[in-house]
């Protein structure tokens, strides 16, 4: 899946009256499908280090749009498998190094496609192999996870690990309690969470930390009122959400802020109508795709998180998303149970 930006721009080709804004489902489907044919562009190669993430974003967007079969299943699986390494990890593209971020995307894609059987068919004992790669990245002293063998730490990796392991049904391979304690150590004075203990609160990191506590069923540890206050304070007068105080609004925060609020049952604390309108203003109604904000180039990243944000708010035309996994709800029900 290509991460090339454009050709559309947020807010272009839209009706004059904002009240007539509608989600242009077919245009977005066509836009995502077209991404796979744009390999002759320089930017395609410059974004190679995100390719597997991009595939997950595109596939998830298509599922949310109700077109789960728009990408050829066997080709997608072949590409994912071509990114797998002997140690059980996945890289962004063939020839890159394996990393937690891509391993998590690979597991999400395989789960979405109901393809754990294909994984086993490609590699005997493949599921367990992947799970062991992830488990081996846990720092047994602190409970958190490295992104790869090089020791980079971030609460994102802890979330990726537990998310993937829960999809694989292999949470027992890691010290879950220690992971939970690590997240607790990242809680800040303002109610949010950062990349590590004491790091500035950031909506993206809050999503990962609350995600860990949701997967491990330890939301009782969250100060929901304080966190909900911080999260709802991210909404700006134009309806969009930012990721930190005094920063600009951006469509992707519709997901990180929105899903975090949904996980702690506080989504109704923001003005959902205004947020929906803001998201719709970021789509290109003719060429498809969403941008971070009106006027900017569209890309697949903001497309999936814009759609997922709309889905949280039960926008017509979008299938229900799971606020923890950022995958279709019915798929999560099938894989991990309701």
């Amino acid at each position: 899946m290509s991460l090339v930006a454009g050709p559309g721009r947020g807010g272009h080709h839209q009706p004059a009256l904002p009240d007539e804004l509608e989600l242009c489902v077919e245009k977005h489907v066509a836009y995502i499908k077209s991404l796979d044919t744009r390999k002759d562009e320089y930017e395609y190669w410059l974004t190679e280090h995100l390719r597997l993430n991009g595939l997950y974003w595109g596939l998830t967007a298509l599922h949310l749009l109700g077109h789960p079969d728009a990408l050829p299943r066997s080709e997608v699986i072949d590409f994912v498998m071509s990114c797998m390494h002997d140690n059980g990890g996945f890289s962004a593209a063939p020839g890159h190094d394996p990393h937690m971020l891509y391993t998590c995307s690979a597991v999400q894609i395989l789960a979405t496609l109901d393809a754990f059987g294909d994984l086993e068919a490609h590699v005997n004992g493949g599921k367990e192999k992947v799970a062991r790669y992830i488990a081996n990245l846990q720092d047994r002293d602190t409970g958190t996870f490295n992104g790869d063998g090089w020791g980079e730490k971030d609460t994102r990796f802890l979330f990726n690990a537990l998310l993937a392991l829960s999809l694989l049904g292999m949470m027992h391979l890691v010290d879950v309690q220690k992971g939970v304690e690590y997240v607790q150590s990242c809680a800040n004075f303002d109610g949010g969470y950062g990349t590590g203990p004491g790091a500035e609160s950031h909506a993206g990191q809050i999503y990962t930390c609350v995600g860990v506590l949701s997967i491990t069923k330890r939301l009782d540890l969250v100060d929901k009122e304080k966190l909900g206050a911080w999260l709802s304070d991210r909404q700006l007068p134009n309806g969009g959400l930012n990721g930190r105080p005094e920063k600009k609004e951006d469509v992707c925060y519709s997901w990180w802020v929105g899903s975090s609020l949904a996980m702690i049952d506080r989504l109704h604390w923001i003005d959902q109508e205004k947020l929906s309108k803001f998201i719709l203003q970021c789509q290109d109604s003719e060429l498809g795709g969403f941008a971070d904000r009106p006027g900017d180039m569209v890309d697949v990243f903001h497309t999936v998180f814009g759609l997922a944000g709309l889905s949280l708010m039960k926008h017509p035309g979008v299938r229900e998303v799971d606020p923890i996994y950022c995958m279709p709800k019915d798929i999560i029900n099938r894989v991990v149970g309701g």
Partner: protein
Amino acid sequence: MPGYGEDPEWSDIVPLPQDDGGPNPLAAIAYSDEYSEAMSYLRAVMAKNEFSERVLRLTEDIIDMNPAHYTVWLYRAKALFTLHKDLRKEFDWLNPFALRHLKNYQIWHHRHTIIEALASDLDEKSPKIDNMIREEQDFLDRMFTKDAKNYHVWSYRQWLVERFNLWDCEEEREAVDDLLRKDVRNNSAWNHRYYVVFGRPNAPKNTTEGHVLMQREINYAEAAIRIAPQNQSPWNYIRGILSHFQQPLSNIKSLASEFASLEKPDEVKSSHALDLLAEIYKEERQLDCAGKAWDLLAQKYDPIRSRYWMWKKEQLGTAAA
């Protein structure tokens, strides 16, 4: 500049083209451009595990074209270590590069790896460590002149503080002061101040000394509030401090009342002050006043979050019961 294909230094290498993993991998790719060519030479040297001066130059070249390619960074670090290069020289290249690529985070991971390796070769008390730290702090200050809220740079700075025990280092508080003088709304700087003062291993406690520190920090935030009353960072900062010392919010009632008052509902200067006032009223069991303050927020000063304010007001009913 001639490409690698025409460079005699690289004539022994057979470039390895991209395997895209698709059914017809080679067909899709135009190999004309510089980047693809450099990558195909990198694949070839990686396949034979070559670590050499020319590999270092090749990685610089590729990183320059595509700094987000994490595999190249990792390979470069391996090459530096294998060749036992003087790691201090790495900054001659890395610093200007970091100043040009503000969004990239691989740079910071690389820097972390290099500093850690340099430090592990030195005695913790060596003056060379102090020098190195000072240079790091100076460079971070330069980074902040480009983007004072850069999350990667702040994360790196926190790592530096913890790794080298800089909790009492004047430079850290000065760096924050400096940034807040330029932009009092810089939440990252506020967070760093909290980190250095209260996030340390022996954080101040509820002692006489601790209370002196508490008052100093509250005064600091108060001064910032007077500059920009609607700036939420110093309000959050004070709340964080009071909760750290388990003090009631009523400690700062007069401050809140300066910027919001129920007697003058049209002259509220800060929604944060008004919310604080409401909570103080709740603490004092003046539930009617608390409810009025939240009504004002819902209707006038922060209507986009009216549902949140109404929820807070409803909780008063539970408090009364």
